[in-house]
């Protein structure tokens, strides 16, 4: 589904250049559930933006379902984002003044689809919000808002969903419910790329890619050994956090 070769993205910063992404070779197959993790500034967001066709690489190649994305025009990129890719963001990014239904219908409008309302309604039903279609985002809880965002991401039946810290603004219980939604989408055959710095969330995936300084430093399929290792890492991290807060 996704194949990159020496994918790089440089940002000029005054006199120097920031290598946000530095020669990434990556393959993600159809139907995978991958999480990308790493500290902030590691390049995971940049990777998602490039893979999500929101920007073009400075160098390297990116093949999406056999099509060369790095050579595409703006219009072609927009079409791919519209039909083949769905985004879920940490802050939901819903349009506050319109109903859940209208929010979900936005991609359908740009895709010139007929029966947008019916399709939007069925997407909302899929995420368990069939009874909230008329509510504005302001009237919904955080978890519900994120579900609306997921419904918007899947309304065009894309093969690939990018989720950027989808649980970052939610309490852990609601976060788990959202992860469950991703699991069920995955079970339905959708490829999922989950970007997160929370180990516990990352562990939900079948494969974990760890990044640092714009490079992939670890790429492992989740097995029990890794699971244990990560759990330990997580505990250490939270221990350090408690220690830090005590010191602070």
């Amino acid at each position: 589904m996704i194949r990159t070769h020496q994918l790089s993205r440089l940002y000029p910063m005054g006199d120097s250049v920031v290598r946000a992404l530095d020669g990434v070779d990556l393959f993600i197959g159809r139907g995978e559930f991958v999480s990308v993790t790493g500290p902030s500034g590691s390049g995971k967001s940049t990777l998602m933006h490039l893979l999500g066709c929101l920007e073009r690489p400075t160098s390297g190649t990116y093949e999406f379902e056999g099509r060369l994305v790095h050579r595409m025009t703006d219009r072609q990129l927009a079409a791919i984002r519209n039909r083949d890719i769905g985004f879920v963001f940490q802050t939901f990014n819903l349009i506050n003044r319109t109903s859940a239904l209208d929010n979900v219908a936005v991609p359908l409008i740009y895709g010139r689809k007929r029966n947008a309302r019916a399709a939007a309604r069925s997407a909302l039903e899929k995420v368990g919000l069939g009874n909230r279609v008329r509510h504005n985002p302001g009237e919904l809880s955080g978890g519900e808002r994120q579900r609306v965002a997921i419904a918007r991401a899947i309304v065009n039946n894309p093969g690939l969903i990018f989720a950027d810290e989808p649980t970052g603004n939610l309490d852990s219980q609601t976060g788990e419910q959202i992860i469950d939604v991703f699991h069920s989408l995955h079970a339905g055959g959708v490829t999922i790329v989950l970007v997160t710095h929370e180990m516990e969330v990352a562990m939900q995936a079948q494969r974990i890619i760890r990044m640092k300084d714009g490079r992939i430093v670890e790429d492992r399929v989740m097995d029990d050994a890794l699971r244990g290792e990560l759990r330990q890492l997580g505990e250490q991290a939270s221990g350090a956090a408690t220690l830090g807060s005590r010191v602070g």
Partner: protein
Amino acid sequence: MFFLRICMMAIRGLQANLLRSLLATLGVIIGVSAVVSAMSILEGANRDILERFESMGADQIMVVNGSSQRQSRHTVLPSLTPEDAEALEELSLVKAVAPEVQAPAQIKYFRKNRNVTILGTTEAYAQINDYKAAAGQFITHEEVRAERKVCVLGHKVAKELFGEATAVGYRVKIRGMPFHVVGVMEKKGFLGFREVDNQVVVPLPTAMKRMFGLRNVTMITVQAKRQDLLEACIQQVKRTLRNQHSIRAGSDDDFIVFTQEQAKEQLADITKIFAVVLYSIAGISLVVGGIGIMNIMLVSVTERTREIGVRIAVGATRFDILRQFLIEAGIISLLGGVLGVLLGLAFTDLLENITRVLHTYTPSSSIYWALIMATAVGVLSGIYPAFRASRLDPVEALRYE
């Protein structure tokens, strides 16, 4: 269908910020309402004046005192006399001639009195203007020749002084002089620029010699035998008057001749000047309105940066974004245009009801144009903000706080 959906999207966006949208379009509202009401007043006045010209009759030639030579340094003395009128009556192309003088005076009947315009003229006046008596009769040739102290009351004058009772045969006092009422005229409204219903007609020599001590007439109305001979008739009239006034070849006329047609043309020229001034003001106010819209649209684009990022992320092309903001700007200003038209119509109506003299007329074309212009201004001033929105980098837009 797609276009409709985008429009709906824009309308929802505007609804969410109704007050701001209204403020944004305030300039357009004021501009459009000013244009509509000014147009209505101008067009109303224009029609009023035209109607009065029409009532003059297309076969008439008006002769008044004065010089057509503008540079003339000395003021021109009145030159037209009753004898001129008699001479004009002899002409082959002339059907009738009505010389006239006019002056304000007070008319009295017992304790009632009223300020009116006294028109001294001849029997031809009624004939030329197709002005008929409702009771009694108009002054006759004999009464004119004999300089009789008789008068004919205008419709309003008779009603004020006599009410429903008959006035014919009674005696009224004009400037203290007793006059015999021989007739009451039909209701006519305006003849030319004169409100004849508030007018009292007396024989020309009576007015000139016995009442006001005048030697010259103010105007001579000449009716041509046929309308298609009007030009030739004008030449005859001019030649005769130059002869009468002993004007040498090469010298200027000491009178002015004009027809309904020429008066209308002059009016059109004046209207054109007004229209140019009006459209300039309209243009300026719409530009100001456009700046207001541009300002608010720029704020809106900044404020909705994230939303724009999301729209791009879910597949909006740059053109989609551009179009969305252009449509929003267009809808805001169309809304302003509609409100402006309503406000302008209301203002016009109010003005007509308060003054009760001013007649207004709103041509429907002016409404269409106002709306088209308002929308065009909105779309034009939306171009730059919309362009800015469409050039946003989605990654940065999504991060925007």
